């Protein structure tokens, strides 16, 4: 399953993966740090209990210090005051009904006491709400007469009862239960967040430096793909690798543009150098006395000219020198049909709707003319032309009543110098560039050329339908 929010760009993917991994690592270390701090607090509490119990002199000496302590600053005083909680001597087991022994703390305390040379014969550790402990409350009230009690008085205390070997009474020591220290936790979280944002932010800046030139290069490539011109090249930017990539791309662009320019110049020269002698020849044949002979020569020259024009056009179709212009396509279609009418060809104008489209009229006329010529040449000498608006496209359709094209050859017909089997003899003329050029012209306009056999009700081929489909 694909996560819909997964970013597609290099920058997004790298930032996201680094962010996720970093978040996991930071969380883990934060948890470990927190656990260590908790451990430390527990040990601290246990040591405090052990200290009280081991140094217990069974006398109440805390009261003497009471006066001077009460004036300490709040937080300081808070910490100290519980240290003044004296050890209570009690004959009864200090644990009451309903209170459970805390095995973990008991073991910890026991091991500390043993280290300090106190070997307990009996030890009990449990927690209890501070307010439920009369001993503590009594002392607190006497220390804080009239004033509010310290915070820990609302929490819990750890109570530890110890009997040394031979003792008859329990020595009971109390420390407040160490709660989670909000300050530490907050510090940990903010430290984690700062580190996190510093790293991810820095990484984002660095990555942007790499990906921005890459994005610019992609845009440039897309532009160059359909307008191969060397101007407007990118300045090499970003890290060395990207710079080199852009420089190499620029060199390639310049090379391609130079090749294309060279091609245009060469084609212009070929066009000029062949058409001028052809023109001379065309003038010279006017002195041929025999009319039939002269018209044959003229037709041959026309054929050569047409082929030459097709080749030159095919070579230039990808780089037209003129801009598209809003044009009345119906009038354009009509004018083509009329051209053929004037030559005495059986071309009729079928359904036509007035559509205005942005086209290069000279090119489009050439494409349509080629389709009509093809229909006349191979399609039984008759052609019908129509222009309709279909699904937001202008569709020029040329239909004939010929034998059509075998289905498996339809695609191949669009390749250069390809002609249908029926026309292998040179009698019909043409170099077989007509459809190739028509398709290239449709491409030039962002459209398509479709060839299809027209089928009758009985499934037999009734003729060919060629259409140029231009998006509006």
């Amino acid at each position, binding site marked *: 399953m694909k996560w819909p929010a997964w970013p597609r760009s290099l920058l997004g993917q790298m930032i996201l993966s680094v962010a996720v991994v970093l978040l996991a690592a930071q969380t883990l270390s934060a948890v470990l740090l927190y656990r260590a701090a908790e451990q430390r607090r527990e040990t601290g509490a246990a040591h405090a209990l052990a200290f009280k119990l081991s140094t217990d002199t069974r006398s109440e000496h805390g009261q003497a210090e009471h006066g001077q302590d009460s004036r300490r600053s709040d937080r300081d005083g808070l910490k100290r005051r519980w240290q003044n909680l004296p050890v209570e001597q009690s004959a009864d087991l200090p644990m009451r009904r309903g209170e459970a022994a805390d095995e973990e703390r008991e073991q910890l305390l026991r091991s500390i006491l043993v280290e300090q040379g106190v070997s307990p014969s009996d030890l009990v550790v449990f927690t209890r709400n501070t307010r439920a402990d009369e001993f503590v409350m009594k002392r607190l009230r006497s220390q804080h007469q009239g004033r509010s009690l310290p915070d820990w008085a609302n929490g819990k205390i750890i109570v530890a009862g110890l009997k040394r070997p031979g003792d008859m009474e329990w020595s009971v020591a109390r420390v407040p239960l160490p709660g989670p220290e909000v300050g530490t936790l907050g510090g940990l979280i903010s430290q984690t967040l700062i580190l996190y944002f510093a790293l991810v932010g820095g990484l984002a800046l660095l990555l942007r430096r790499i990906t921005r030139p890459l994005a610019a290069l992609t845009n440039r490539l897309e532009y160059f793909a359909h307008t191969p011109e060397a101007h407007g090249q990118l300045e090499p930017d970003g890290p060395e690798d990207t710079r080199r990539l852009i420089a190499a791309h620029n060199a390639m662009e310049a090379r391609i543009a130079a090749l294309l320019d060279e091609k245009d110049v060469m084609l212009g020269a070929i066009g000029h150098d062949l058409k001028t002698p052809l023109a001379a020849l065309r*003038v010279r044949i006017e002195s041929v006395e025999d009319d039939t002979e002269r018209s044959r020569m003229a037709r041959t020259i026309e054929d050569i*000219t047409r082929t030459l024009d097709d080749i030159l056009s095919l070579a230039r179709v990808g780089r037209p020198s003129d801009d598209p212009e809003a044009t009345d396509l119906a009038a354009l279609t009509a004018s083509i049909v009329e051209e053929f009418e004037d030559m005495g060809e059986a071309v009729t104008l079928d359904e036509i709707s007035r559509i205005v489209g942005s086209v290069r009229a*000279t090119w489009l006329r050439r494409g349509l003319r080629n389709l009509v010529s093809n229909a006349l040449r191979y399609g039984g000498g008759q052609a019908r032309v129509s222009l309709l608006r279909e699904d937001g496209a202008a569709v020029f359709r040329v239909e004939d009543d010929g034998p059509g094209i075998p289905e498996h050859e339809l695609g191949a017909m669009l390749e250069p110098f390809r002609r249908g089997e029926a026309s292998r003899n040179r009698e019909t003329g043409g170099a077989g560039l007509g459809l190739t050029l028509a398709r290239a012209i449709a491409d030039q306009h962002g459209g398509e050329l479709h060839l299809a056999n027209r089928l009758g009700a009985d499934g037999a081929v009734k003729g060919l339908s060629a259409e140029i489909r231009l998006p509006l």
Partner: protein
Amino acid sequence: MPGDANNPVRILLVDDEPGLREPLAEYLARQGFAVSQASNAVDARNKLLNETPALVLLDVMMPGEDGLSLCRHLVEAKDLPVILLTARGEAMDRIVGLEIGADDYVVKPFEPRELVARIKSVLRRSAKNGSSQQEDAHYEFEGWQLDPVKRRLTAPDGAVVPISAAEYRLLVAFVTHPRQVLDRDRLLDMVQGREAHIFDRAVDNQVSRLRRKIEDEHNEVRLIQTVRGGGYVLAADVRRIVPDGNNGITA
């Protein structure tokens, strides 16, 4: 029309290819023109110091100063009619040629008879206008615009409407004589050009083609109306507007 035997019409033919220039000069001479030849722009300028041809046939692609530059000089300084001979047939070349003031262009290889027909047509027009000066004012009628330089018709919605040379000349005849009845002979006379043979056959056909392009079937108003007794009239007022350098057109 190439003048009479004693006083033939003089044509200056400028082309760097002797292979085309010489047989073409011979052919035109056989057609009754007096032809001078020049092989480049410098040569042509020298020839023009001594003689004033009625028309210049000018190759566009020549080494040294090219045909377009010479054409500009001929039209602006000498006020001579020019027909360009061009090897390329691309739309841009044609429009550029017409914009700098050439009267017509033919694409190589051309049919010599067609060239002669065009020469005659240009000469006839320049004789009528008294000069070959291009009209650069547009004609406007009912929102339509006819640009005589680019020979281009623009619909009220701004779309270019492709029309043939014959239709263009027919339309020029109509817009220069708005609201006047033009009978077939008159139209023929005014629009006769290289497509004369077509017009002989069917002025009516051309008019109906033109109508197909500029009239809306659903619209009641007919721009070109048929007059009983044989003739047509442009039922619209025509304004002349001079293209403005900045933003298109001003009245």
